[in-house]
């Protein structure tokens, strides 16, 4: 159990956030907004943080999840909750298929080549859906009316303002457990080695392709579940230009890096900071939030290259608190 101590502060943050959201009027959506950013940070961290590979096309996995859920709700509406379950299954299936396609091509590449190949995957897939008019093409899939007709407006609203949130929360809790499990297991050590020196890792006996794929599939699966719950289920529509928007990938990368790549707590803290900052800046400084955000980002990158948690861990090395922070 000792190795699972780092989950304590993480779960504490989640629980405190949820309590604040549930008890303070008007803060539930903002808390879910923050949870979304924590979620994409935790999800991407399982790949970017653990392997050091930058996936610029990461949002494609969220998109696959969003489409999986949308396809299930759109074509199998009569299944009710069954359609939601099917949606999560399809989300996982679609993202796994994409994983196989990307893993086959891109994971053989390194560094900037990998990063750019994944941009190709993301943009290519989006234009394929739009150009070949798959799943409604650029018109996307709009579900609100269908859900309201099938389930009644109250239940449909309940789906998108409560069930979707609960699903997201569950996904994030599970994702954090998966992260700590990975970090503590052979997989985690293999990834640590390949992140630091891939060639040396091979010589030490690590099947780098296998472990990269494990991280890739894990991260993609979590991402797709987030896409299914925080996008489709919650917003009740999917437009390709919206779900393949590269901005989300960049935001997720920023969160992972700010918090400290490869740490458990890092993406949680920075997701919290990023989400809260974004929300309050849009309230306090409407129209100028990005102008304030950009220099802040540059300063943090220059001053804390290991991220917040990376920095704290360095300071705490050898102290008793150290084993709670990962």
């Amino acid at each position, binding site marked *: 159990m000792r190795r699972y101590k780092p989950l304590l502060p993480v779960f504490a943050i989640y629980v405190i956030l949820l309590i604040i959201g549930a008890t303070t009027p008007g803060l539930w959506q903002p808390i879910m907004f923050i949870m979304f950013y924590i979620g994409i940070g935790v999800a991407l961290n399982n790949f970017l943080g653990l392997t050091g590979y930058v996936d610029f096309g990461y949002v494609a996995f969220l998109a696959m999840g969003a489409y999986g859920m949308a396809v299930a709700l759109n074509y199998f509406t009569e299944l009710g909750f069954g359609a939601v379950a099917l949606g999560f299954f399809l989300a996982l299936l679609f993202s796994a298929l994409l994983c196989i396609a990307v893993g086959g091509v891109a994971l053989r590449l390194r560094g900037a080549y990998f990063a750019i190949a994944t941009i190709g995957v993301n943009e290519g897939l989006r234009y394929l859906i739009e150009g070949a008019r798959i799943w409604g093409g650029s018109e996307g899939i709009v579900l609100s009316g269908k859900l309201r007709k099938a389930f009644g407006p109250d239940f449909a609203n309940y789906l998108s303002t409560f069930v979707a949130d609960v699903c997201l929360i569950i996904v994030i809790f599970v994702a954090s457990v998966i992260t700590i499990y990975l970090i503590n297991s052979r997989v985690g050590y293999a990834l640590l*080695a390949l992140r*630091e*020196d891939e060639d040396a890792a*091979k*010589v*030490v*006996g*690590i099947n*780098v392709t296998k472990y990269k794929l494990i991280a890739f599939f894990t991260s993609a699966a979590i991402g797709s579940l987030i896409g299914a719950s925080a996008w489709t289920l919650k917003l009740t529509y999917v437009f390709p230009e919206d779900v393949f928007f590269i901005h989300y990938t960049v935001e997720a990368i920023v969160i992972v890096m700010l918090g400290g790549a490869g740490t458990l707590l890092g993406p949680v803290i920075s997701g919290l900071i990023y989400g809260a900052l974004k929300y309050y800046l849009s309230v306090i400084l409407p129209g100028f939030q990005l102008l304030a955000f950009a220099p802040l980002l540059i300063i943090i990158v220059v001053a804390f290259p290991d991220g917040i948690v990376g920095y704290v861990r360095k300071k705490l090395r050898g102290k008793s608190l150290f084993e709670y922070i990962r």
Partner: protein
Amino acid sequence: MVLLRLEGVTKRFGGLVAVDHVDLEVNEGEAVGIVGPNGSGKTTLYNIISGVYLPDEGKVFFEGNDITKLPPHERTPLGLARTFQIPRPFGAASVKENVAIGAMFGRAKANVDEAMKMADEYLELVGMYELVNKEAKLLTPLEKKLMELARALAMKPKLLLLDELMAGMNPNDINRIIELVKKIKVKENIAVVSMVEHLMHAITQFAERVVVMHQGKKLIEGPTMEVLNDPKVIEVYLGKKMVIEGYEG
């Protein structure tokens, strides 16, 4: 019994032949030295044995099995381990984690808990116990080399390939390391192949048999003292100072 056998191994880079039809045999538990100047093809040979390069010609056998085409990560569990001329630690990991990774993925195939225990043991063995929690990238070059040795030993290999392990060390360290490797070699019946550029003293102390490489070819092979006194060998090193005592940087 023959542990490792190379048959006519050749590797070319562009127009250059780095390793030219080399045959080599290493027996179980044997200590072999490979001597040769810079560019004689030693490191390429190591890379072929450990699977980093595929040879253009020739075959590699380990315990009688053809491993010529196996990727590195499938060779290591058979009982291969190596160190690098310029150490390649997993920088952000702690010293202990570095060694534990060796124990997990080498022939030892230890689980995480066992690997951590083994890491402690082997680090104590090489005299680095007080450094276990340090970040590997903060170590001195010498410490990095010792850590790599511990990492390689923790893999419980049958064949250990050392690449210029002792270059840059002072005589005290060299003696300590030689004693250490000798002891472990006997205790765990490891065959050790040690590659050096010049350090003849260490080789005489350690190797039972020596192979001299020159321009990608095997120049001569035989019992250590015999080979070192061979006129051909002296000719190869003509114009270069033969360092028998002390160390060469």
